């Protein structure tokens, strides 16, 4: 089975502090891995490292077959979707405009934007400005973005926090579609029950290392 993410003895430092230390993680195609841990344990740093947004101090990290130290990661990055703590919508744009902007930046056509918004239940709210929308609605736009770009690697950082039941079902469906296409997903959360429901492998992040969860 193809390896999507491979971290070996990876160390990441932030502001001189070691956050991840000798961390090993393997994610294969079709899998989803859950990482639990308390606030400040390094979950977000782990996600950013896998997303190639954080440089590593030591060890080895490869994503979708490419070493993260490579100079040109553009092709790999376009196959990664990251849903982080805070939705990154532009407040002054409508939901449709936000998604359209993301589609254009990704080099995709505009034709599927409205359809994607309807799939996530925002068909009637597409003309509403992001600044006037709830957290859950903004999160749904990010889910629509994932549906548009069809990533091979999906990274969810507390993505289900603060969502209602139907939005959580959308997150689960999104996760399923990525895996069904031969991709992989890494979910980090302090909500262990949510991770257990969606991930085959569950780890605890302690002292910068991953330990298999009981």
């Amino acid at each position: 089975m193809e390896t999507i993410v491979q971290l070996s003895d990876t160390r990441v430092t932030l502001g001189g502090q070691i956050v991840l230390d000798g961390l090993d993680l393997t994610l294969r195609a079709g899998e989803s891995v859950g990482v639990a841990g308390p606030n400040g344990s390094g979950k977000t740093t782990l996600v950013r490292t896998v997303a190639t947004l954080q440089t590593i101090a030591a060890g080895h990290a490869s994503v979708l077959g490419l070493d993260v130290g490579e100079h040109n990661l553009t092709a790999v990055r376009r196959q990664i979707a990251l849903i982080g703590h805070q939705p990154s919508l532009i407040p002054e744009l409508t939901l449709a405009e936000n998604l359209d902007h993301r589609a254009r930046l990704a080099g995709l056509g505009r034709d599927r934007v409205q359809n994607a918004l309807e799939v996530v239940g925002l068909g009637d709210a597409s003309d509403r400005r992001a600044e006037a929308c709830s957290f859950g609605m903004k999160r749904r736009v990010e889910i629509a973005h994932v549906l548009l770009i069809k990533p091979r690697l999906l990274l969810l950082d507390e993505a289900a926090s603060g969502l209602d039941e139907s939005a959580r079902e959308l997150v689960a469906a999104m996760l399923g579609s990525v895996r069904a296409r031969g991709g992989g997903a890494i979910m980090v959360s302090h909500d262990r029950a949510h991770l257990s429901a969606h991930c085959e492998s569950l780890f605890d992040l302690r002292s910068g290392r991953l330990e298999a969860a009981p």
Partner: protein
Amino acid sequence: MTFWRQAVEIARVDLVVERRAGETFRIVLPFSIVALMVFPLALDLQLGIVSTVGIGVFWALGILFGMQVALRQSASDTPERRDLHVLSGVDPAARFTGRALSGGVLMTAYLGLMLVAMAVLFDPELPGGGWPVLLVSTVLVAVGLTELGTLAGEVTTGLRSRTPLASLIVAPLALPLVIGASQSVEAVERDTSILPWILLLIASDLALAVAGVALAKPLEEATQ
């Protein structure tokens, strides 16, 4: 997506955001014009002096308030939005170019309106060729100041005191622009060649454009 399409898309969205938020024309511009009005009042409406200092006041206030226009994008930039650009494969140089394009349009319009306000309030005396030279200088200063602000925004990404620090970077580096602009108009009044000063402005604009494009990727990597 090509470099230019990315740049144009970033510029387009920035202009849409500005049209709706109105930061430049509904907030910065009115304040600038009020500041312009203070000078004639402070000079006790002595028309001779007011007319003499008009262009100098225009450059001083234009640069000062123009920095707010130049830095407006970096002030609203969030780490999440930067991550989105990186993962969407946006070329950092295209992002710089896009921001410089939209910022340049706004800055030119802003300084143009300030120029009109200054002309009405100060009624400066200029020789025949003075106004066209002032207009050309204004456009070149607008381009340079925008590039400088965009570059300063990139340099200070992720820093705690980002906005004041970026202003501190812009102010001294804007000196060649101020000198080139003020001396080009002075040259018309002295009836000497304006070419060295216009060339100084063009060279500053080009140098800032090259620096912005060349440093975009290293700066993005430095913040990771």
